[in-house]
Structures are given as structure tokens and as C-alpha cells.
């Protein structure tokens, strides 16, 4: 944690806001996977957080395979290769796994009562956690700080260098890692928005979400569109897992649960099924969590998030940007 800038309350507030925004972008990326799948099959995919966790563990595996084991490899060929490789491997892995789960678990239950796939999703969540536990054990594992400042070879036992501040002189602290989160998440979300708005498959996804029967009558293969939705949601979780791991530098088999709950809350807050809503919800959660933690106490930040969720849902039951549930027909 950076030292608190208590001397200047305004700067401190700005700093917390900035931290909140950056972490909110991360929640948003995961929330998109919940919201897209819900939008199209009305399933709360409770396994989504744990899919994210497996993406984190895979990213760690990539580091180990490439030989980027510690912060010492930051900036070296191995370090750069590891980051590049995990940015490909984790999204592909998570997308493929999500498609496979849809095919094997959710698709056979497509016409079953909604509770059946929901409970199955909880089951898949436990299976994923079991896999994570078996894969990397029960304790926290350090993820190499490959985007941190490189450690000079002669300073092995010295304290690690402090990352450079990209906003030096403004009173705010914004490191290269913060920038990385922004540079990965925002273009990813922009690409998703363009894809859903303008491509044929994107329009077919929206059409299927709005009326699956009519979509079939248009010649849309609904099963394929649903598989594509799981693929995209999974890939976003994969991208999120890389960014998260490189940002927080700790992974474990239980991390999917808490982050999944935040991201799911973000999706509901923004209006589940609504893509801009998920991004907005993620940012709100990130900011509330950080500000609440700073000014009220971090032990209250979760209670605060859910209190806000309850209040918003009382006044806007469909979330901040959610569509009315009944359309004119």
C-alpha cells in the first residue's frame, strides 16, 4: 500500500478515487462475463469467478514455463515473453473452458427450469476450485511482479526499488502497473462494444438475447451464438486474470469467489444483461470499496458495497442502466 497522503485531504481523496477507478476497471472486465451470459441465457454463471481464478493460475504456470520466476525477470526477454504469452494463453484457455462447460453442463439443461443450470453453475464453481486447489495448493502463491521496476543484479538483498510515478508533481501516484490496467481493460471493453454493436455476430447475440425464438426464425443458430457468448465472456475473464495477477502479485485457489462476488454485484448494480452497465457497476464498486476502506474502515467496505446495492435496487430494480424487463410487443 502506498503511504497515505494525509497531509493534503484533497490529494488523498483524488488518490483513493484513482485507485478505485483502476480496480473498478478490473471488476468491470469480470462483470462483463456475468452480464453477457445472463443477457443471453438468463443464467447467473456462478463459476465465472472461478474461471477467472483458473486463468490466474494458468498465467502463473506460463511465467514458470518461460522462466520468469521473480521480479528480477521484469523487463528481461523472459519477462516480456511471459507477459505476451499469458495475454494470449489465458483468454484462449478461459474461452475454451467456458465453451466446454456450456456444452457439457448448461446446454443439456437449456429447456430445464432455470434453477437447474443455476445449481449446476455452483457445482462447476466447486469443481473449478477443486482443480485450483489440486493445481497450486491451498496457500497464497506469489505471482512474479513482472511489471514492477527491474531489480539491479547487485541489489539482491536490498529492499525492492519503488516503482516510478507517472504523475510525479501532481500529488497523485500512478504507476506503470496502473497504466497497464487502463491500457488493457479500456481497449478490450471498447473492442467488445464495437463488436456487439456493429458485427453480424454481435447483432445476432443481441437478437438472441432479446427474443431467442425470433432469432431462430431468422436462421440464427442459437446454440452457436450462446457458445460464442461463453467464449467471449471467458476470454474477458482470461484477460482480467492476467491483469489482476500482474497487478496484485498474489494468487490462490479461493480468489475467484470474492472477486466473482464483486463482479457479479457490479453486473447487477449496472443492470444485469447490460454491457455499459457492467462497466459502470464495476467502477462504482471499485470506487466505493476504496473510498469506504479509506474513510470508514476496510472492514466495512464490503458491507458498504452491498448496502449501496440494496439501496440502488430498491429505487432502480433493474440496476443503474438496466432495461425495463417488459417490452412493448
Amino acid at each position, binding site marked *: 500500500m502506498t503511504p497515505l497522503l494525509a497531509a493534503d485531504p484533497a490529494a488523498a481523496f483524488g488518490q483513493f478515487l484513482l485507485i478505485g477507478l483502476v480496480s473498478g476497471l478490473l471488476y468491470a472486465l469480470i462483470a462483463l462475463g456475468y452480464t453477457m451470459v445472463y443477457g443471453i441465457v438468463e443464467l447467473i454463471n456462478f463459476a465465472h469467478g472461478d474461471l477467472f481464478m483458473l486463468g490466474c493460475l494458468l498465467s502463473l504456470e506460463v511465467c514458470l514455463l518461460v522462466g520468469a520466476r521473480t521480479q528480477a525477470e521484469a523487463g528481461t526477454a523472459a519477462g516480456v515473453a511471459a507477459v505476451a504469452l499469458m495475454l494470449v494463453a489465458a483468454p484462449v484457455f478461459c474461452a475454451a473452458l467456458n465453451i466446454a462447460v456450456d456444452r457439457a453442463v448448461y446446454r443439456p439443461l437449456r429447456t430445464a427450469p432455470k434453477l437447474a443450470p443455476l445449481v449446476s453453475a455452483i457445482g462447476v464453481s466447486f469443481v473449478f476450485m477443486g482443480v485450483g486447489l489440486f493445481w497450486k495448493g491451498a496457500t497464497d502463491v506469489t505471482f512474479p511482479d513482472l511489471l514492477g521496476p527491474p531489480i539491479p543484479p547487485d541489489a539482491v538483498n536490498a529492499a525492492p526499488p519503488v516503482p516510478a510515478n507517472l504523475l510525479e508533481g501532481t500529488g497523485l501516484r500512478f504507476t506503470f502497473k496502473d497504466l497497464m490496467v487502463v491500457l488493457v481493460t479500456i481497449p478490450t471493453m471498447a473492442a467488445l462494444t464495437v463488436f456487439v454493436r456493429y458485427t453480424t455476430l454481435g*447483432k445476432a447475440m443481441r437478437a438472441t438475447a432479446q*427474443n431467442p425464438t425470433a*432469432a431462430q*426464425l431468422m*436462421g*440464427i*443458430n442459437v446454440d452457436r451464438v450462446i457458445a460464442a457468448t461463453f467464449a467471449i465472456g471467458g476470454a474477458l475473464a482470461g484477460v482480467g486474470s492476467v491483469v489482476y495477477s500482474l497487478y496484485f502479485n498474489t494468487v490462490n485457489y479461493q480468489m475467484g469467489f470474492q472477486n466473482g462476488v464483486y463482479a457479479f454485484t457490479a453486473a447487477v448494480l449496472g443492470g444485469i444483461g447490460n454491457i455499459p452497465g457492467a462497466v459502470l457497476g464495476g467502477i462504482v464498486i471499485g470506487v466505493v470499496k476504496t473510498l469506504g476502506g479509506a474513510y470508514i474502515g476496510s472492514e466495512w467496505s464490503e458491507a458498504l458495497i452491498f448496502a449501496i446495492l440494496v439501496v440502488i435496487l430498491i429505487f432502480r430494480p433493474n440496476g443503474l442502466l438496466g432495461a425495463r424487463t417488459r417490452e412493448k*410487443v
Partner: protein
Amino acid sequence: MPPLLAVEKLEAGYGPINVLHGISLTVEPGEIVAMIGANGAGKTTTLMCLSGVVKARGGRVVFDGRDLTAEKVPAHQVVRLGLAQSPEGRKIFPRLTVLENLQMGAFTRTDADGVAADVEKAFTMFPILRERQHQAGGLLSGGQQQMLAIARALMSRPKLLLLDEPSLGLAPQIVVQIFDVIRELNRQGMSVLLVEQNARMALKVAHRGYVLETGRVTFSDRAAALLDDPRIRAAYLGE
């Protein structure tokens, strides 16, 4: 010439309930065929079965020489064979624009130029759709949504158009307008299978008609003959 559509002893239903108990009908190329009957007679189920959305439990559907039931043609392939539907309740995509709704109708096509030309044709047929092309489909009035549903179905360039209750919930002068469009489409060569509760309107526009009662065809004849039949007049034309 073989019929464009031949349905033989079609059976279908939902869960434990059978709705269709052996429906047989044909549509010849260039014909408008009306299917009339009370609520729950199985008209919509028949159309959904033809489109592959509801699975047939027995009987055959032969369309344009292809046995859809034996080949187990999935719903999303039926459109490609030339069978399009404007469904009951219109089922417009409410948050897609009018233009995007039309583009979805052409989902199976890859000829972008041809699609653009057909969008233009749809706008010529229904000028109000051109005016409102960038508005969400859900914001259109009922009559405009019906026009959009028909235009959307035509975007796949079908050989046979299935129309389910195009008059449902519309003001009388809009209904007249919709039926004029059906007549005009037919004049241009489109074959139409029309499901209607408005039996008089349907039989006036159609060449032949079928009367459905609880999943069975009880009468079938030339439309003009059905209009004159005292039993039909009493049961369906309110006389």
C-alpha cells in the same frame, strides 16, 4: 407440378400434451392458403413446426422437394431452404433498430449488395420504416411492428412466407393495409400460408382455406366456397 409445401398427418405438442393430431395441408406455388380456427386449434403450433422451432412428433413436412422431418432440418436451416415466418405477436427485436431488425432477417445471406437492395425495397413497400429506420423496433406502433415483421421475413428472399395473425390487435384500417400488402406480394409471385382469427379477411384474400379444430383439419376448400359454407359462416364469420 408438385406442391411447394406438403404437410402429411403432422403431429406435435408441448410436454405431455399433443396439440396437433395429424394435420395435412398443401400450398401450391403462387398460392395464398389461409388456415383459420379458434384459439388453441393448433394454427401457431403448425407454423412453428414448419419452421422447425417445435419438433414434429409424427407425420411429414415436405418443402420444395426436401423432407424436413426425415432430414431433421434444424430451425436455423429452414430459413436457408426458403421458408420464412412472420410470427404471432410479431416478435420484433425491441432494442435493435428497425434497420438492424431487417438485417437480422437477412442473417443467412452473404450478398451484402443484394441485402442493401432488399432493404431499399422494404422501405419502398413500407415508407414509415424508412422514416424510423434508426429507432428501436420496440418503439414502433403495433401496425408498424407488423409491417416490420413482414418486411423482416421477406429479407431472406423466401419461397414461402408464413404469416401468423398479421391482423392481431391492429386498427381496422391498418388491417386493410396489411392485407393489401399480402395481396401485392402474392401478385409478385410470393406463396403465402396465412394463419388468421379474422376468418373473413383471410378467406377473402386467400385462394384456398383450411379450418382447424383442436388439432385437426375439419374443412378444406376453395376460399370462396368456405366463405359461402353455412357451417363456416355460423362458426367463424359470426353469422
